[in-house]
Structures are given as C-alpha cells and as structure tokens.
C-alpha cells in the first residue's frame, strides 16, 4: 500500500448536553492512503457526519473531541491551536457539504468566492486566481468556466452548484477531502456524472477522499474501502467488494439484505427490526444487540474489533457465508 495521509486512532467526540453526554463518535479508527476513497456508511445519527466534522476541527460546543488522535501527513491535528488548524483547513484537508445551496454565499459571484478561498492560503494576483479558478471549474465539468466565474450561485442548477463546491474544495490540492453526502440532494443522472468525475479526480490528483453516505450502492461504485458506522462506532470495515459480498457484522448483513435491489420484486424485504437507538440511552455493550437476532447475554459487554485479513468487525457472533449455507 502507498503512503498513509490520514490516520485516525480511537477518536471520541462527545456532546455535553443538558440531557446527558451524547457519544456521537465513540472510538473510531481508520487509515487512509494517498488517492484512496473510503466510504463511511451509516444511518442518520450514526455519527458519520460528526466524524467528518471532527477531522476538520469543526465540532462546536457543547461538543468536543475528548480522546483520540488525528494525524494528517504526520501532524497531530487534535492538539493544534485554532490558528494552526485554520492554516491547514482548506489547504491540506477540505470538506464538501450535502447542501450546495447552503454552502455558497448567495451575495458573491462564483469567481469572488473562489478568490476568497485562494486568498485564505496563498498570495495570488487577480488574474492568476481567475485562471486557477477557471481551470478547476473546467476540471469538475462546468462548461465555459471563465464566463461562469461572474455568475451568482442562484444562476446555477443544484448539480452545477455542487460542482462549484467541489472545485472550491480542490483549489489547494488538499491531501484529503471529506465529502458529506454530496450527491444526496441531486438527481440520479447528475449524481452519476459527479461520482464518475470524483473517482477520476481522486486518481489524477492523488487526493484521498472520505465519502460519507447512507447509500450503499453509491459507495460501492466509488470507494475501494468501506467503514460501516452504528451508534458512534465503526462496526465493520474492510475492502468494499469483500465487505459487501461477505459481511460479518449482522448490521452490515441486514443493511445489504434490506435493499430492494437484492430482493425478488414484490417479495417482502428482509427487515432489521426496531429503530436506531437514541445516543442518549445506548444499551451497554454492543449497541446493535437489541435489534440483532444473534445477540446473547454476552453482547452486553462491548466486543472489540476483530481484525483478520485486512478487515475488521466488532461482533461476538459474526455472520459468515458458511452460516448462511447451513441455515
């Protein structure tokens, strides 16, 4: 494997609310290599977005990173001052958010916003900045980019706005981009165009990506590596193809089985019973146990990550292909 650009160890981000301590991220670890795309999948409230925010130091009070390490190109981010972190944010690590309408400033032209993003880290003349901005817009597939620099966000469609947000994230050729459901708000035909481009961009520029999504199908066509989150923890991680073909954690297996695409039309879908637990009242041990068919008393203690052949799962009773054949 090539060099590691981002290494996260035992990250814990907790929110100290009046109702209690919310363990939004509770012991997340992973490594990301140059140019690698990792999918971070989970349902709402599983902590995938907070994980992304933590990487960029964007967690606000009452939340904070209580434990763990985030190493970006060898530098520890969790102990950096705000100023030092700001000099890296946008330059070494950047983020693309779900809603491109909320990301862009409606009062500034695209060119002005891109110039501001350039100015944050570099001294570049107006002309040079414009050329760089136009170059990136072209790269993300915006036609007649130089002219579009003078347009305002409302003159763009949703897909085009998201491309602008992606271009801004790419301005300083960061080592890592955290993309938080960037295509969820878009139509499938536009989503496909953007997914395809992001894959090429990662390959060409060597930028590593964390692609946060609730959609397994999107991630499976994009990411080489996958991490599945449930209630603040990564319950399973590994190579995308291996993990989807042969899931070990019952939650992963349940998610895959519950997709309509994997079932016979009209037949009842395999469903995971119950609902996602509130982070305020998590059961002791494995958080998935109350919804799990395989759970026993043992599951009230927390399982560690079992690591085997470059994959890992947190479960005492992992599913395996052999089980399904015998069952």
């Amino acid at each position, binding site marked *: 494997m090539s060099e590691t650009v981002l290494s996260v160890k035992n990250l814990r981000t907790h929110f100290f609310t009046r109702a209690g301590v919310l363990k939004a991220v509770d012991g997340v670890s992973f490594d990301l290599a140059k140019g690698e795309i990792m999918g971070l999948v989970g*349902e*709402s409230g599983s902590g995938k977005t907070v994980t992304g925010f933590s990487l960029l130091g964007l967690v606000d009070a009452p939340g904070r990173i209580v434990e763990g390490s985030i190493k970006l190109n060898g530098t520890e981010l969790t102990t950096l001052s705000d100023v030092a972190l700001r000099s890296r944010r946008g330059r070494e690590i950047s983020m693309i958010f779900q809603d491109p309408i909320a990301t862009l400033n409606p009062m500034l032209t695209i060119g002005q916003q891109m110039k501001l993003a350039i100015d944050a880290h570099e001294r570049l003349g107006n002309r040079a900045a414009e050329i760089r901005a136009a170059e990136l817009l072209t790269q993300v597939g915006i036609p007649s980019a130089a002219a579009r620099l003078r347009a305002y966000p409302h003159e763009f*469609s949703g*897909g*085009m706005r998201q491309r602008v947000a992606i271009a801004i994230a790419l301005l300083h050729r960061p080592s890592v981009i955290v993309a938080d459901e960037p295509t969820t708000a878009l*139509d*499938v*035909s*536009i*989503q*496909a*165009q953007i*997914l*395809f481009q992001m*894959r090429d961009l990662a390959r060409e520029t060597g930028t590593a990506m964390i692609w946060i999504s*609730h*959609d*397994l*199908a*999107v991630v*499976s*066509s*994009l990411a*080489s590596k996958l991490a599945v989150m449930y209630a603040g923890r990564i319950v399973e991680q590994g190579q*995308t*193809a291996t993990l*989807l*073909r042969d899931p070990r954690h019952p939650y992963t297996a*349940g*998610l*895959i089985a*519950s*997709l*309509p*695409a*994997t*079932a016979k*039309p*009209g037949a*009842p*879908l*395999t*469903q*995971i*019973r119950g*609902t*996602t637990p509130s982070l305020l009242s998590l059961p002791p041990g494995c958080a998935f146990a109350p919804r799990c068919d395989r759970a026993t008393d043992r599951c009230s203690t927390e399982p560690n990550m079992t690591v085997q052949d470059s994959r890992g799962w947190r479960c005492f009773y992992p599913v395996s292909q052999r089980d399904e054949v015998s069952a």
Partner: protein
Amino acid sequence: MSDFLSIDNVSQIFGPNLTTGEKIAAKLGGKVETRSVRAVSDVTLSVRKGETLGLVGESGCGKSTLGRLIAGILPPTSGKVVIGGAPVMKNGSKVTTRVQTVFQDPFASLDPRMKVGNTVAEGPIAHTLTTKSEAPSYVASWFERVGLDPVWVDRYPHQFSGGQRQRIAIARALAMQPDVLICDEPVASLDVSIQAQIINLFLELTRDLGLTSVFISHDLSVVQHVSDRVAVMYLGRIVELGPVAQVFGEPAHPYTAALFGSVPKLVLDAEELVHFDTIEGEVPSPLSPPSGCYYHPRCPLATQTCGATQPVMQQISDLRAVACHHFEKQQADAISG
C-alpha cells in the same frame, strides 16, 4: 380487467400570479416573468383495480404534481381523473374520499399540536365513517393494522421516530377507507433499515385491502420492487409505460435506458470499480422546454425529426407504450425489412 382509475388527458399549467401593476409592466415591456410552466402535459393513464403503478423521473419532471392531480389536491388545468366511474373533482373541488395520499415527509405532514389519534380520527368522523364515540376503537384498529401500539394514540408526533410517523400517516390515509392510495416518496426520508419495514407494510396492506395505488419515487429500485407497471416521466410528459420487468429489463425510450444506466448499483462481485453510463447535460428548464421531443438535446440518438416534432405515445405491445421517434423508425424498419 377493467380500468379502475383513469387519468384522461390531464395537464397542469402553473402560471405566474401577476398583479395588475405587473400586467401593465409586462405590456409595456418591463422585466416581468410571464411564462408559465407546464408541470404536467397531456397525461393519459389507466390503472386497474388492485394494481400498483410506479411513477419515476428526476426532480421537476412533474411526478408529484401528477400525484396531487390524481389525489384531487390540485384541480387540473385541463383533463379529468375518474375513479371507478366517478370523477374526483367537480367544479374545482374534490368530491370523493376514495383517494388518499401518503406524503414524503412525515415530519411536515402531521400536525405537531394534535394528538396522533385525533389526527387519524379527524377525517373518518367528518365523513361519518365512524362516530365520535366509536372513534377510539376505530383508530386503535388502524393503529394495529399499521404496526403501531394503540396505547400511543394520545401522544404527539414529536414523540415518534420517522418510521413510526410514516406509519401514522399511512393509518390516517387508510382510515378513510380509500380505494386508491397515492404514495408520494413515502420512504425517501427514512433510513435504509426503516425503509424496508415501510415497504413491507405497503406491500402487505395493498394486497390485503385490495388497494389500487400510485407509487411515486425517484428511487428506481424501490419502484421496481413494489410496482406492477411503471410510467417514466420527463419534463411533464410520460415517455414510457409498461410492466416493471419489461421496462426495467428492456427500456424502449433512450431516456429510460439512460436513467436506469446512471443509477449506482450495489457492486457485489467486481474487484474493480465499474463504469456506469451517465446522461449528458441536465434537465432543461420547464419554463422554456426544447422544441420537439423534450429529451432530444441530451439524447444520443436524436435526429432532425426529434428537434422538430413531438413524438406521441404509441402502443408497442399489449401493455407497453413509448413516446420516441427513434422507436417508430425502428419499428418501421422492422416491418419494411
């Protein structure tokens, strides 16, 4: 089998609501938006009793507007919707309770200040399907039917999760004892694990109650799973219609093919990342749709004819219809050759 729900040449035009001042300004050449949007154009569809028709398309294609027209929430600009021989609308207002809707967002569709039991009981009491005194047991029976504990009737919407709220919304629709159920993206705002529960509930209820339904979704795999037939919409028009297996298996319209091609599939067996087809460009603005076939600027098969004349829906087999010049030509070639 006879048609139960028929949608006859229905169109919906949303025009700008101009003030007198604006009208004068427009006359004098001022910058006033006077164009209107044809959200739904000349849609003719029929659904058999007990059938589920899937309605797919990208955002802005008019699928939700069509759903609202069928449900009698919006009076169509022209055309009519008939259920079992009786029109849904008379003089611009809804005159039937035989069609009910389940909306996308269960956070917005339930009154936050009303106990959920009352929300479900309100309609049936107003339409004398039950009486005030019998309402509690009536509501309880529908709660059980959709998998909710009847003791929850005195709770408020915020005390429920998204999936549970959608169950309440389904109970509210079904308590009106409709024949036709319109589901407008009922699972789009739910988590994957909850989505499966609601889809299963939908399948079970439509089967057990013999409901005829229109299932609107942008998620093709969901539509493929629940529908018998599917209609594909593009810029307010239906471009293809047919049994799910046939349309998904062998799309006849280039747009259908491209739309299905651009859906990310769950890749289980490939070690290498797959290439998926993408549609060039974006959906044009409905304020100024292109000439001829609306899809021609993005269509790889487009010819001069496509830019000039609008293709009409034509039957290509017993159950299938498509609106595409290219298909007409293919067929003509096949006959002459």
